């Protein structure tokens, strides 16, 4: 089993710069965790609210390493046959039917049941070979020649049984297929697991992973992300927008806007050719970053205050930088 030697990263900062080069602005904490996960060859369990870039992180990593990203979406009821491999049962059946004559020919001359069986055994595992195997994400990930980034998305949605099954994959990067034996990874994949915390993961799983929690970003980080992701955005609007979103996150909302919503909103405002946030503009576009009726209503009520505060914060920031 090989591991990634090329490209290797000299330090956390180098990795952070590589992330930035593929338009993923990683905070120091994120870069450190990924750096360690990469060098210690450990999976990384990424937690955090929806939309803070957990999945993006894996995508960016795949892009940096220039290897395929193999994604396995977890859900309740996901089992081995959907995650690892499945025998192409229909194909096996079809082949036996098609090959009926061939089988007859093969059997010709064999006297008695025992002799026929003997003939068959000479071709024993024909129907349980790689040709009849339907590879699923985990199997594919282990078989990549150049390695890959394996993303096990929303692992908290899977059943505890499946989680236990993952343990072998995560610690040794190998799986056991009864008919084929143990399959080892050709190149150890970089594994990311994401979780939205709908249930607590087992200790065994946590022990095998590095833990990374991605919170909502700090204002400065969020501004940098916007600069990257929404290139045409003016600096002034960027400041106001981020300050506003940060203020909205202080409200008691059902679903707080996260980075993906900020980006969506910035793109919207760009389309509308906005230069500054105004009351009407914000009111009309609230639904871009707030996804619940109740949230929109409660934000709407406090809109003037929020906007004032956002402007003040943006100015303070501007002044401190000027």
């Amino acid at each position, binding site marked *: 089993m090989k591991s990634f030697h090329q490209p290797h990263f000299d*330090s*956390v900062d180098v990795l952070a710069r590589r992330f930035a080069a593929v338009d993923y602005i990683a905070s*120091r*904490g994120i870069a*450190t*965790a990924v*750096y*360690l996960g990469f*060098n*210690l060859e*450990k999976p990384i369990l990424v*937690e955090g609210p929806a939309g803070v870039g957990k999945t993006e992180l894996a995508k960016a990593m795949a892009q940096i390493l220039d290897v395929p990203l193999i994604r396995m979406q977890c859900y309740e009821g996901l*089992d081995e046959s959907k995650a690892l491999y499945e025998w192409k*049962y*229909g194909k096996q*059946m079809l082949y*036996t*039917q098609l090959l009926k004559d061939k089988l007859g020919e093969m059997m010709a001359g064999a006297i008695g049941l025992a002799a026929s069986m003997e003939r068959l055994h000479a071709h024993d595992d024909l129907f349980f070979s790689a040709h009849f195997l339907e590879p699923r994400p985990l199997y594919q990930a282990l078989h990549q020649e150049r390695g890959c980034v394996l993303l096990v998305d929303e692992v908290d949605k899977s*059943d*505890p*049984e499946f989680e236990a099954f993952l343990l072998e994959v995560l610690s040794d990067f190998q799986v056991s297929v009864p008919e084929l034996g143990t399959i080892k990874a050709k190149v150890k994949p970089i594994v990311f697991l994401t979780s939205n915390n709908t249930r*607590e993961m087992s*200790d065994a799983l*946590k*022990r*095998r*992973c*590095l*833990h*990374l*929690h991605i919170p909502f970003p700090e204002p400065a980080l969020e501004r940098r992300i916007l600069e990257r992701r929404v290139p045409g955005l003016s600096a002034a609007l960027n400041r106001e927008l981020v300050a506003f979103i940060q203020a909205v996150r202080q409200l008691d909302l059902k679903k707080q806007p996260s980075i993906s919503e900020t980006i969506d909103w910035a793109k919207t405002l760009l389309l509308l050719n906005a230069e500054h946030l105004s009351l009407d503009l914000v009111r009309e576009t609230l639904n871009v970053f707030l996804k619940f009726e109740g949230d929109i209503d409660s934000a709407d009520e406090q809109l003037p205050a929020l906007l004032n505060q956002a402007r003040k914060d943006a100015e303070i920031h501007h002044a401190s930088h000027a």
Partner: protein
Amino acid sequence: MQATLEDFFKALRGSDLDVSLNAQVDAARAVQLVGWSDRTLLKSALGATLAKTISDRALCDDVFERFFHFESFDFEKALAPQPPAEPASGAGPSEATAPPGDEPAKSQGAAGSGGSGGCRGGGGQALSQLLLSGDSAALAKRMQEAAREIGLTDIWFFTQKGYYTLKIQQAMGLESLEREIADARRQTLAPEHARRLELARKRLYAEVRNYVERKLALYGTAPTRQLHDDFLLSQRLSNIEARDFARMHVIVYKMAKRLAERHSRRKKRRVRGQLDFRRTLRKNAAYDGVMFETFWRAKVVDRPRVVAICDVSGSVRQYARFLLLFLHSLGEQVSDLRSFAFTNHLVDVSETFESLPVEQAVDKVMQAVGGSGTDYGQVLLDIHEQLLDDIGRRTTVLILGDARNNRGEARAEIMQLLYQRARRVIWLNPEPVAFWGLGDSEMKHYAPYCHIARECNSIMHLERTLDALLRAHSASA
């Protein structure tokens, strides 16, 4: 380096964070990768490898701050600074407040190069000189080396404070300081010198004592708490004091979770059962008997149904709190639990338990239902009317109470009905078995109609009984 890391792990354990060996190895490798020079980097590297949840991470960061907070002596006010010492004492604080980022590396380097000679040799300077010159950085370093030498990290109980304080001072060279003070006293020429030295010794004592206290807080919290927890576990529930309730919540919650985890796993063995051969053959007749489509017999997952009925009357007041607490915790784990409380009539409290956090729920039930004058007869009648239809052969009935009926009618015949209908009837009685049937206790009448009737008056009892109950439950399923 390694020693420092190990001390850090110890400190983490001292704060109730369990660090597995695996994580320790990772942390050590991570530190090798990132080095000691960058404090924030070191912090996030240790956090990423050692902490496994968000709360653990916060705890880890907190311990990091406390652990890598470098001790500095605060001397400049204490010792009237003599003119030549002025620059030194001026340098002291500035050293102490220097960016702490460099300090781990610095002190580590010093400890390494200082060699095994240890503290007394240190910089070759006598303790008294260090104290008088107010060289706080050197003093702090020497104190840490002394602490390392005597193994301060083993401290875990507050009564050890005095011992460790003295040991550290001795390792720092207290003896020679004492001698010097004695000499200075004898020389009448230098009363001023003696006075200053004494003052310095006092300050030293205070500083070391402070240091030991901080370290006790770092290393000693969890073991002490563990000791206390063990005590609470085996203590009779009626003897537990109000101030320990919060701690009990945590213990009970953990226990309920453990029980539910242990026993819920076994339930869901296999969802996909065996091949349903008949159905498969019938369906595939169309394909000339070739089995293109398969059908599997699904296994029915047997969820435990528990009906818990809890006495909250005056006679069991001290127990009721914990029993309710336990019911609440169990309700978070077991999918199908209905809880009732009673004094003289049955009240459904499932709703309260589901909607309110534990403290409020328990208080509310105690207020609403609690009182004196238990009437088991009436309660059993209520059960007969309201509940009996819902109790089937898959239900476990859990009754918590002392069966003291105030000389009312026992109505054991309803217990018999329950016994016949339910899968299991379990009675947990806080009174010792010897008291059953004495006075107004009807336990002797009820006990024959229970699958299990047990004494239960400490958390340990509770856990054992329920563990046995759940095991029997899943084995017979």
